[in-house]
Each structure stands twice: as C-alpha cells, then as structure tokens.
C-alpha cells in the first residue's frame, strides 16, 4: 500500500479508483474494465508528472521524510558487498541510529557510515528515528579513523531529522561529539564522499557531510533547522512551515546554486519511494563518479581540497 502525502490526495483518488475497477473485474469475469482502467492510469500518470514537476520546498520535505523512501540500510544492502557492520564507540554504547562498517563498493574496500531511520515501528524505535546520540558520532569518528589509517575511502549516507535532543545525549556531550566528527571528516587523508539521501538535519548531518564531494538526491533536503522549527522561531508559529521552507533554501536545487553541494541526483518520477531500486542505482552511479574524481589524489591533496571547498562556500550567495 502506498503512503500518500496530503498534496497527492487527487492522485490517491484516481489510483484508488483504477485499483477498485481491477479488483471488481477479478471477481466478475464478464466485466471488461481494461479501457476504463487504462484511462485512469494515464490520468494518474499525467497528474503525477504535474505534481512532481515543480515540488514546493515544503512538499520536498514531505517527500524526503516519506516512510517508504529507501533508507541507509537499503543502499548498503544493494550497493555494497561483504558488509561487515562495526559497532560501538568504545566508551558508552552502540548507537543504532548510525550504522557503519567495512564493505566493498565495486569490489574496492571502503568504510560506509550512515543514519538509519528504520522501516517499521519496532525498527524506528530501535533506530531512534535516525536521530543520533553522542555515541553515534563517536562511532563514526572511530570508523573514519580506521579508514584513514588503512587508506580506505569513506562513503557517508545522510538521513537524519537532526541530532537527538535528549537529556542523556546532552549529558554525554552531544556538542563535543558532533564537533569531533566534523573535525575528523576534515582530517582524514582518504576520499570522503557524502550523499544526502533524505533529510540533512542540521549539525547531525554536517558531522557526516563535511566531505570532498557532497551529492543530494533531487527531492532530499538539507538545512540548519527543520522548517517547523524555523517557523516557530521566526514566525512564532510552527504552522508557517511552508513559508519557512520557502525562505530557507533547503532544496537540492538551491543548495547546488549556493555551492553547498556538488551534484544533484535525479529521482524517478514520483519520488524515490515509488521506485527505490532505480533510485539506489542512481545513487550508486553518483558515488562511483565522485570516488573516481578523487582517486589517485594524495592524502594532503584530499585534506586541502576539503578545506578549500568549505572555506569558499557562501562567497557567492544565491543570486550567482
């Protein structure tokens, strides 16, 4: 069953009707509905094209958060072989909101790290909805260190509403953990590439996305705060999230213009959740391209490349 978003309601109605007709025909042998159903299908298809042609920033947020959107785990399963998950921060716990380990990408050994949101109630709770605690960032630091010492490229998959705002997380130094993770991203002398596959939520995302190359899926978002949070602060009304999303420039298209990201990966019509396999394949191709660009570069060149990239960000503004 498809999860429809509020703006897809007309689409849900048409697709529902087509489905009903077909169900009816299955129990009623002398009924021929194929022409009618096909008409509905084509109507649905053109509506889908229309809806996704120019998604508003807020609608993109909804798509980026869609529960059936492929998550980190799906990407690791499909794009990597020999995945060996590595756990723990060697200090306090293993944070299930962050998964990572050794794996092969096109046969090349790499370290892969990402936020995992979970796919059903049980796993969502286990993964804390992709909101990492300090242990998650400290695990990432440990894995990046490992990659750096053994010369393995690092691939990060970013998909988090943000770092977890909890009591224990603060007690154990959420800020410091995020700062150290960002610092580690800047220190390692191996290629580091990142893909924002869903939500790039604030510091929790930066901690993984301070990379040589950053790609974003077409309908993913990346921002300093959620639109709801921004609306609550600046509009004094969390319901003004549409306006906030508009003003914040959080879409892949705007971030490309601002020079925050290096490439935008197109999504199949109707969003990644409608065609997960196609999306995963496209992300795999983008990762391969980014790694290829960086291959053969010396550790110092990679570190310098990353520094220069971030020091230069923002000098142009949106109009450029």
């Amino acid at each position, binding site marked *: 069953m498809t999860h429809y978003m509020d703006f897809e309601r007309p689409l849900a109605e048409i697709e529902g009707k087509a489905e009903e007709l077909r169900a009816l025909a299955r129990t009623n042998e002398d009924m021929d509905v194929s022409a009618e159903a096909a008409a509905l299908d084509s109507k649905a298809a053109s509506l889908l094209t229309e809806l996704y042609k120019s998604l508003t920033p807020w609608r993109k947020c909804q798509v980026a958060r869609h529960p059936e959107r492929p998550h980190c785990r799906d990407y690791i399963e499909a794009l990597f072989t020999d995945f060996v998950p590595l756990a723990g921060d060697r200090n306090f716990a293993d944070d299930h909101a962050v998964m990572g380990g050794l794996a092969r990408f096109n046969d090349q050994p790499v370290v892969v790290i990402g936020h995992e949101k979970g796919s059903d109630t049980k796993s969502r709770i286990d993964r804390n909805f992709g909101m990492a605690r300090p242990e998650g960032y400290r695990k990432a630091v440990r894995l990046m260190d490992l990659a750096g010492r053994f010369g393995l490229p690092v691939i990060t998959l970013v998909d988090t509403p943000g770092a977890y705002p909890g009591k224990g*997380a603060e007690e154990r130094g959420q*800020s410091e953990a995020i700062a150290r993770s*960002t610092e580690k991203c800047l220190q390692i002398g191996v290629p580091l590439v990142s893909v924002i596959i869903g939500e790039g939520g604030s510091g929790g995302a930066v901690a993984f996305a301070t990379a040589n190359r950053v790609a974003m899926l077409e309908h993913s978002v990346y921002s300093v705060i959620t639109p709801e949070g921004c609306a609550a602060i600046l509009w004094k009304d969390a319901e003004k999230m549409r306006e906030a999303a508009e*003003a914040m420039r959080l879409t892949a298209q705007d971030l490309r213009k601002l020079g925050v990201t290096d490439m935008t990966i197109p999504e199949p019509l109707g969003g990644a959740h409608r065609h997960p396999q196609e999306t995963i394949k496209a992300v795999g191709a983008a990762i391969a391209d980014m790694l290829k660009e960086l291959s053969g570069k010396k550790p110092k060149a990679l570190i310098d490349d990353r520094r220069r990239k*971030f020091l230069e960000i923002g000098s142009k*503004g949106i109009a450029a």
Partner: protein
Amino acid sequence: MNWITNYVRPRINSIFSRRETPDNLWTKCPECGTMLFHREVSENLNVCTNCDHHMHITPRARFEALFDGGIFTEVKVPASKPDPLQFRDQKKYPDRLKAAQKQTGESEAMLVACGEIGRTPIVAAAQDFSFMAGSMGMYVGNAIIAAAQEAVKLKRPLILFSAAGGARMQEGILSLMQMPRTTVAVQMLKEAGLPYIVVLTHPTTGGVTASYAMLGDVHIAEPNALICFAGPRVIEQTIREKLPEGFQRAEYLLDHGMLDRVTPRTQLRDELISITRMLLGQPPAIKGDLPAPKTDKTPPEAP
C-alpha cells in the same frame, strides 16, 4: 564589600524600585533584583556586586578590560555577501541587520582584536550576544577564520569568547556551513602549534557549541552559563519531563567532563595570562605590572 554598602543598599532599593530610575545611572540585576550603580557594575565587568550574576558584556567592553591598558587593535574581517539567501520572514533580513547595527553600534556579531594581556601578545575574538543573539552566520565564520589566520601569522595564541543563541537562521544552510568552516580555522591553529582557548559565556548553544566552542585546548566557562546543543525547552518538549535545576549550566558541564574550569569573569584575565604563558613556555607574568585597566566608561547596554 563593606558594611556601608550592605547597610545602605536595601534602603536605596526600597526607594528606587517603586519608581522610574534613569537608565544611565542604575541597572537592575535580572537575577537578584538589586538596583546597582551602572558605573559600579561596569567596573565589575557587568557582574552583579550583590549576587555575582554574570550579565552580558559587549566584546568591546570585555576587550577594554582584558587587554593591557585597555589597548587593542581590531583585526579586519572580510565582509560577507549581505543577505546571501535573500531571506525574508516577517521582516527582511537586511532590515533586521540594520536594526541590530543601530542598536549596538557594531557591524556584526563578532569582534576580533590583537593586543597584549600581562605583556603576552594574543589574538582575541568575542561574540556579541547583543547583536542578533550573537548568531553565527557568514560574518562570524569569517571573523573566526580571520582570527585564526592572524594568530598563525603573528604566532600568537587565540582566545575566543563564545556567546550565541545558535545559528543565524536568516542565512539558512550557510550558517550551518560555518560549523566546518570554523573547524578548519581551529585546525590551522593546532597545526601551527598555537594554543586555542575557549571561554564559553552565557549562552553558548546549538551549532556554535557543536563546532569551534568545543574544540579548544582549554575550555573555561563563566559561572552559570547555559552551554548546550539542544536548548532546554526543545528537550523538555521531546522527552516530556522537567529538567533538573542547573541542567546544561557551566557547573553541570564541568561535572560531566566537558569543561576544564568554571571561572568568574573578574578572575578570568589573570587565569588566561597564566595559562597562555605556561602553554607558550614563558616565565610567569610579573604581578603588579600593568594591572587590568579600570573602565569607568559605561558600556552601551540594552535596557
């Protein structure tokens, strides 16, 4: 404090709290409510003489009290592109900026300066909470990078006073990008083998805490400063319980291992001199040589 102040103050309070007091003469401590002579408070670095509450202090007033003889040279910060996102909420961002500039007399939320403390040459950077809550945008990032570059060029330590409500919302993703940008600045200092000391003042929150404010060689906080990633209100809404008294305050962070020290503002200068001189392998500062300058000027203070 002598018996006269102790004896006289309650009477003065009882007289003045009931009517309008001229702003330029009196300041009311937001913590204990005591009416304090403005001049007395500014001489005490905006620390309440009654309850030791640390009020906000502008970077300029702080630097005047920090540097020998109150003398410092400002380090030029490369201008950033104004309103990079063409952001507008209920007001236009440039209008908000102009209002903050008018109110504070400063161009942005961070001041960088060179000078000497106890005859020890340093570079200092201070965030201005009175300027749009000290929020971190492109300018603050540029200021920290400029401070680090100046420190590296002059081979001096950097002392950074943080104070921010978090990110400059109106610069959206670009404010977030200051986390890696300022981290690069900190790395420049570390690679040059220069001390980087962070003084966390009230409040230091969000992306500021989760980047340059938590990457110091030494972390000192002013008493009772709120220091956190997620603010208490956000956490209370998330976990739906009341947080304990003192949660995310400086003393709490000290207990949880995130800080080296909690030091009252009035003792900070001496402590910073001692620490930097030891880290630089220099002999102790001569006590009594060039005492901290007395500021008898009234710092521009928001009412």
